[in-house]
C-alpha cells in the first residue's frame, strides 16, 4: 500500500485520542505508563469531560504526565497528589479529578495522604502504577519491591529481615469505608488493557455518585529498572509480580 492509500479514512483502524497531546512521550519503550495514559485519555474523551477534568501529576517517572494529557494539570510535590486531589474535588465538586502516582510516591512518602484521602472517601479517581521500583531516580528499592528483588539500593536482593516487606497498599485501602471501588489491573496484554480501560471508565463514572474514592492499581513493568527487555519484563511481571499482587476487584460497592 502507498502512504496515500494508508491514510484514507476508510482504512483508519486506530486514531490517537485528542485528549492526548502530540508531545513525544519520554517513557522507555515497553513501559506501561504510555498505554495507561492513553486509556485514561480515551475514557475522558469518550465521556466528553475534557473541559471538566483536572489531573494531578506525581513526582516520579510520570512527573511530566501533564505534558501528555490535554487537560488542565497540576504537578504535585512528591507523595502529595491525594491532598491536592482532595482540595480540588471539594472546590469543584462537579468536575472530574484524577491523581496519577507511582509506588514510591503513593505508597512510601505519600502513604499518609493516600490513606486519609481514601478513608475520607474523597470523590476522585486515584490511579496507582506499581512497578515495584523507583524508575526515575534510577531503579532504587520501592515499598512494593518484591522479596529478593534486586534494585540499586538492594543490590543483593530485598532482604525482608533488614529492608522490610513489600507493601500491599491496595489491600489496605480496600478495608477503608471511604473506598467505593478498589481494583488491581494490568495493561501488558491487549485483553488486560481493555479490561483496565473498563475499570478506569467505572472509576470516572463513580465520581458522579459522590460515594467515595475509586482506586485503581495497575501492576506494571520497568524494563530499564528491572534490566530486562520489554518482552522479558512482561514475562517477569506475570511470573513474579502477579502472584504477589493478584489482579481483580478487591472491592466494588457501586
Amino acid at each position, binding site marked *: 500500500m502507498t502512504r496515500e492509500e494508508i491514510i484514507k479514512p476508510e482504512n483508519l483502524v486506530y486514531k490517537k485520542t485528542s485528549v492526548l497531546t502530540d508531545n513525544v512521550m519520554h517513557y522507555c519503550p515497553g513501559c506501561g505508563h504510555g498505554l495507561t495514559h492513553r486509556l485514561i485519555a480515551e475514557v475522558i474523551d469518550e465521556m466528553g469531560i*475534557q473541559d471538566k477534568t*483536572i489531573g494531578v501529576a506525581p513526582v516520579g517517572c510520570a512527573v511530566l504526565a*501533564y505534558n501528555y494529557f490535554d487537560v488542565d*494539570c*497540576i504537578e504535585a510535590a512528591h507523595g502529595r497528589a491525594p491532598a*491536592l486531589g*482532595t482540595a480540588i474535588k*471539594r472546590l*469543584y465538586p462537579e468536575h472530574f479529578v484524577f491523581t496519577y502516582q507511582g509506588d514510591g510516591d503513593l505508597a512510601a512518602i505519600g502513604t*499518609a495522604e493516600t490513606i486519609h484521602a481514601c478513608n475520607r472517601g474523597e470523590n476522585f479517581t486515584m490511579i496507582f502504577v506499581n512497578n515495584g521500583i523507583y524508575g526515575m531516580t534510577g531503579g532504587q528499592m520501592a515499598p512494593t519491591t518484591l522479596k529478593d528483588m534486586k534494585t540499586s539500593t538492594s543490590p543483593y536482593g530485598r532482604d525482608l529481615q533488614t529492608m522490610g516487606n513489600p507493601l500491599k497498599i491496595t489491600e489496605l485501602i480496600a478495608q477503608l469505608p471511604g473506598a467505593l471501588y478498589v481494583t488491581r489491573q494490568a495493561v501488558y496484554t491487549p485483553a488486560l488493557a481493555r479490561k483496565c480501560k473498563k475499570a478506569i471508565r467505572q472509576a470516572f463514572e463513580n465520581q458522579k455518585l459522590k460515594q467515595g474514592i475509586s482506586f485503581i492499581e495497575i501492576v506494571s513493568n520497568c524494563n530499564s529498572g528491572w534490566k530486562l527487555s520489554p518482552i522479558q519484563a512482561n514475562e517477569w511481571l506475570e511470573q513474579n509480580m502477579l502472584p504477589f499482587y493478584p489482579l481483580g476487584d478487591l472491592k466494588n460497592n457501586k
Partner: protein
Amino acid sequence: MKELRLMKGNEAIAEGAIRCGCDGYFGYPITPQSEILEHLMAEKPYEKTGMVVLQAESEVASINMVYGGGAVGKKVMTTSSSPGVSLMQEGLSYIAGAEIPALCVNVVRGGPGLGTIQPSQADYFQTVKGGGHGDYRLITLAPASVQEMYDFVELGFDLAFKYRNPVMILSDGIIGQVMEKVEVGDYKPRWTDEYIAETFPWAATGKPKKRDHNIVTSLQLESAKQEKVNLRLQAKYKECEANEVRYETIQCEDADYILVAYGSSARICQKVLQLAREEGIKVGLIRPITLWPFPKQIIHDIGIKAKGILSVEMNAGQMIEDVMLAVECKVPVKHYGRFGGIVPTPSEILQALKNF
C-alpha cells in the same frame, strides 16, 4: 453594615476568612491557634458562603491542599503554629515556584523543636529569609491587633492574587489569644467559577475547547528555562518591594532613640514609649507591618537621625539584621529580646533602652 465584636485574634482570622469570600480552609490543630479551625467548624461557613473547611491529616497535607486549591484559582488558606509551619515549608516552596496565590498564617510559639506553646517571634528568619528551598519570597504581614488579624486575611488574599505569590500572616501567641474589639464587615460572596476562569487564565479550572491546557508546575528541567523562571520571580519580587511596603511610625518626630518592633512586640513597645516619655526620654517606634518587603527606607531615614536603635523581638535577634542593613551601620543598633515563650515586660525594655 459594620458590626462590633469582641474576639480573639484567632477567631478574627477565621471570621475574616468567612466574610472576605474565602473558598477553602485546610488545617490541622496545634496550640496556640486551634481556635481558628474550631471557630470555622462552629460557624458552618458552608451554609453561609459555600466555603469549604477541612481538618486535614497533617500540616503537610494542609499546605498541599492549599497548593491544589490555589492552582485551580480558589481563595484558599491554612493556618498553623511554628512546628506545623516547619512541616509546610516544602509546600510553600512549591507554591512560590508554581506562582500560586495562597494564604498561610503562623501563630508563632517558642522553639526550637517542640519548644513551648507560649508566644514567640523566633520564626522571623524562617518566614522572610526562605524556610523552604530555592530563591523565593513570602509576602509577610505582621498584625499587631485583633482588628489587623481580621483585616489582613482579605489583604493577604488581595496581595496573593495580585502577585500570584504565597502570603504569610506572621502572628504570635499573644495576638492569637488576646481578645479585642473588632469591626467585622458583611459577608462578601465568593467568586463564581466563571469569574475565576475568565480572570485567572493560568488557573487549572478545566480546559475549554478555545484554549490550550493549563499546566501548573514548579518543574522546569532545562536550566536555561528554570533561570528564566527565577528571573521572572525576582522581577516580581522587585515590583513587590517597590509597591507593597507597609509600616507605622509612632512619635518618631523628636525621638532620640528608635524602637523597631513588629506584631505583639510593637504593642509592648507602645507602652514603653509612654513609660519612657513620662521619664523624659524621647523614644519613637517604627512598626514594620510588612516584614517582607521590609520597610528599609523609612528605618534608614528616621534611624540615621537617632542616637541609637533598639530592635525589640521575642527571639535571639533576627530582624535586627535587616534593621542594621537598613541603616547601613550608620547608627548603633542593638537588640533586646526574650525567648522560649517569655514575653518581655515594658519595664525591662525601658531598662534596656536606658542601658543603651
